[in-house]
């Protein structure tokens, strides 16, 4: 593990991948497995959407995540809620202290305005991709569509809301080696784009990399810190566990 991270060892990885900046990827992380993301060069942004692989109309819900935990951002010991009252993923480790939930992603016009347009014909695979297209590329692979493109998490990025409501992007939230662990509490389809954060300053398109790995860690134990970080979360975990009360799952909260 990188010296700037205090992340715990997780045992052998069952899957490993390196995601270059601007690209897109998706995978299923089954209940009890942990997805580890490490920002290898610093300053990364990973837009993230999560769906219940067993019932893909159930998906990560920004508002339910925020109001259940009385927060506007994610950090260690907080969790990602679905729209159906279940904990989807738990942030069991985090080196950054803040992951944005309220800014959405970039589209082609935003990337062109900030960084200049650079298409495939000109730049081959160094063309400047945007977050929206990245999400659509991945959603389409799993039979999903624009209808499923909702407010995403932006891992590794920090946007502070001042008292008057104004939104300020904070640089250097993620030094090289910063690690975040997301443990799946449902069978989770995780859809990602590593395009820049929509409020990131500067005109240089990023060139970093994010290491991804999946490890068996087991689902949340009875004394798990995420389960007990809020009384609401104790009930959210109960709802997740009820999904698996029958071997093939399926109950609403």
């Amino acid at each position, binding site marked *: 593990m990188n010296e700037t991270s205090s992340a715990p060892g997780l045992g052998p990885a069952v899957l490993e991948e390196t995601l270059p900046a601007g690209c897109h990827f998706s995978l299923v992380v089954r209940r009890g497995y942990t997805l580890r993301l490490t920002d290898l060069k610093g300053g990364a942004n990973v837009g993230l959407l999560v769906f219940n692989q067993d019932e893909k109309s159930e998906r990560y819900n920004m508002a339910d995540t925020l109001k259940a935990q009385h927060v506007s951002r994610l950090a260690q010991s907080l969790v990602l809620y679905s729209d159906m009252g279940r904990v989807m993923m738990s942030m069991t480790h985090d080196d950054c202290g803040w992951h944005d939930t309220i800014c959405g992603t970039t589209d082609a016009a935003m990337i062109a305005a900030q960084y200049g347009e650079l298409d495939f014909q000109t730049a081959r695979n160094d063309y400047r991709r945007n977050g929206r297209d990245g999400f659509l590329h991945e959603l389409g692979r799993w039979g999903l569509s624009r209808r499923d493109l909702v407010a995403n998490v932006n891992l590794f990025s920090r946007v502070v809301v001042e008292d008057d409501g104004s939104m300020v992007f904070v640089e250097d939230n993620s030094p090289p080696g910063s690690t975040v662990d997301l443990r799946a509490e449902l069978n989770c389809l995780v859809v990602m784009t590593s395009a820049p954060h929509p409020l990131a300053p500067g005109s240089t398109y990023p060139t970093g990399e994010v290491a991804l790995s999946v490890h068996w860690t087991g689902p949340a134990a009875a004394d798990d810190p995420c389960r007990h970080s809020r009384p*609401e979360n104790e009930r959210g975990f109960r709802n997740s566990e009820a999904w698996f009360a029958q071997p093939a799952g399926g109950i609403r909260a």
Partner: protein
Amino acid sequence: MTDLRMISSTTIRAGAPFLARVEAGQRCRIVDTLGNEAVDAFFFNADHPIERYSAVDTIRAQRNVYLTTGSTLLSTENRPMLTIVADTVGRHDTLGGACASESNTVRYAHEKKFMHSCRDNFLLALLSERDDLTKRDIGSNVNFFMNVPVTPEGGLSFADGISGPGQYVEMVANMNVLVLISNCPQLNNPCSGFDPTPVEFIVYEAA
């Protein structure tokens, strides 16, 4: 000031759903008749409803999480849907989402599961009147008259309302829109003052 003619006025009873079409150029006013009500509202492009309201694109574009006069509600395609042209309250929420049976079990208690909720209103309004719109088409909504302060430390809470009797918000439609409303039936937090009441939905056009 443009002369306006009222073309409809509808009372939305406490806890009731509502779905209406507003044409581009028309104005719609939502009146918090008795005060301290929460009006959960969501919007679709009436002609192509896969395009819908986007809370995160709206607040990111204006660099502010609160909605008030001058705020333009953007779609999932980053296009203007409606613009707020009058607001006697001062700010409205778009981060708190709609209440649901499921989130009520998390936020309050499993015993709250069978209480009425905004999700039930949204689903009933869509599924009883439309064959093309389902839960997948519902994103994060606007909560008119609701007070959800966000702190620089990353906190968020549902606080006592700052609206009062007769307060209103008025929008001009930038495209033909479907307006989906749940007059919030929540009894477990102060968003409706623990006493949901009727609101008025009024549509105007240029005289």
